[in-house]
């Protein structure tokens, strides 16, 4: 085996320079380059068949028959005056993406709005319970604030804390009649809400969690009486002054302590209650702000996509 043949074998792995070979076919190489390429091709087992393949392909293309026109394309005056429908530059991209983008933005808006509404209702319940607890903790509600106590109905029978919760308007075991109004409707409750709830020992049985229903609790350690919340109507957190003559059947201090309708399962100071409420509030506020931002952004994208669609459709009609 000769050295040249060995060299050709070693060089067999190179790829042919298609652009150079193609230019050589079209006579676009200068004389010097053409000579070097011809010398290489004549000795190269890779480039030679490639050049021949290109030459054969070019010949086939040049041999393609020329089709005659099926009709005359001369223009008539009516053709010139009639509008020509042509696609508007750049509209295809907008028309392709605008509907999908607008749909996704609208769906995102609906989801975020729903989450925002759910969060608002949850935080409202927290605030409502917190305001009720604050009201019960102050102990300063006047007797006539909104809850009517019929003390002439008689003394309490047994432990009021264990008494079955009377329905609104019914007479409880303790002989009291509660005509419930909601704290929101009660002007006294609203006034009390404005007062600063001070931390007092008697206020230890504050609510640690939002009121979820009528859950009677055990007697608080300071002697306050827990009257279970009625099943319907009467809201929790109602403070019944202890000097109304109501005999709760539970030993109470001689001082002006109050019986409290408490739904909290465990005592906690009002300060902690306020802090918890504040935490709920601040957390709720933060969530609402975030939701609002996302809602505005999603609405803006949806409106923008819709406007883009309408704009390009109008342009397309105008071009047509």
């Amino acid at each position, binding site marked *: 085996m000769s050295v040249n043949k060995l060299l050709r074998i070693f060089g067999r792995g190179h790829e042919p320079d298609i652009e150079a070979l193609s230019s050589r076919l079209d006579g676009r190489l200068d004389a010097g380059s053409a000579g070097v390429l011809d010398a290489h091709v004549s000795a190269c087992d890779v480039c030679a068949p490639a050049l021949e393949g290109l030459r054969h392909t070019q*010949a*086939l*293309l040049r041999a393609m028959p020329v089709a*005659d026109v*099926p009709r*005359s*394309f001369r223009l008539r005056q009516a053709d010139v005056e009639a509008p*020509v429908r042509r*696609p508007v530059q750049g509209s295809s991209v907008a028309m392709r993406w605008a509907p999908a983008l607008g749909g996704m933005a609208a769906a995102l808006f609906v989801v975020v709005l729903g989450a925002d509404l759910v969060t608002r209702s949850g935080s409202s319940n927290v605030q409502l319970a917190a305001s009720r607890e604050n009201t019960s903790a102050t102990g300063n509600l006047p007797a006539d604030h909104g809850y009517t106590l019929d003390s002439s109905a008689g003394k309490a029978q047994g432990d009021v804390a264990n008494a079955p919760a009377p329905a609104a308007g019914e007479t409880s075991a303790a002989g009291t009649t509660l005509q419930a109004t909601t704290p929101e409707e009660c002007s006294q409750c609203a006034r009390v809400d404005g007062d600063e709830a001070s931390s007092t020992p008697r206020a230890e049985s504050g609510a640690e969690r939002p009121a979820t229903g009528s859950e009677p609790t055990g007697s608080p350690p300071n002697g306050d009486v827990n009257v279970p919340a009625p099943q319907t109507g009467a809201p929790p957190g109602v403070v019944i002054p202890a000097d109304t003559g109501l005999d709760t059947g539970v030993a109470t201090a001689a001082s002006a302590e109050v019986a409290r309708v408490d739904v909290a399962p465990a005592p906690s100071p009002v300060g902690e209650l306020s802090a918890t409420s504040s935490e709920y509030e601040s957390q709720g506020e933060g969530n609402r702000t975030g939701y609002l931002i996302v809602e505005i952004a999603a609405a803006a994208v949806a409106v923008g996509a819709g406007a883009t669609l309408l704009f390009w459709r109008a342009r397309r009609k105008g071009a047509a």
Partner: protein
Amino acid sequence: MMAVIPLLESRRLMEERIPGAIAGQDTDAEALLVRRALDGDLDSFNGLVDLHQRAVYNLCLRMLGSPPAAEDAAQDAFLSAYRAMRTFRGTAFRPWLMRIAANACTDELRRRGRRPTLSLDAPLAGSDEHIDVPDTAAGPEMEALRAEQATVIEAALLKLPQDQRLAVVMCDVQGYAYEEIADSMQCSIGTVKSRIARGRDKLRRELGSMDSRGR
């Protein structure tokens, strides 16, 4: 095995079928028509249509692979050219017209979903009676062979990317020079060289694989 058509013979035939296709220059008569068409003379513009409609239609046919689509694209191209005459700046008219025809083919491809297909229902170029077969002396066997070759080449051409297909059609099918192709495609001569080379190479490989599969 395919017969090899002599290069000189095919180029002569091409010049006869598409006058001025290889020369690449406007004649005096054409220049006069262009000047009148610039003033809005529809009859002069139709004179230009008569001169170039075969080249435009064949370009559209090779780009789209379908005679009906090529007919629509060619009509759109001439309408667009008439409306855009005021933008013609007095250089060679044919490259400018071919650019408009190429754009019309692009629009037609977009309308058809960017996928040109060889129309199986419409008559293929090379097999229909209206196709001009200049050299009848070659005999019916040669005509049948050329028709078969054309079908194979057409199918392979439609697989090329649009820019390579346009460059190869203008260079090898219609015989335009690199400069005219660069003017029509609004790119450099180096880009034209590259697109032609890559298009030819892809066709070479495609035709080679077709041969090996027995088509």
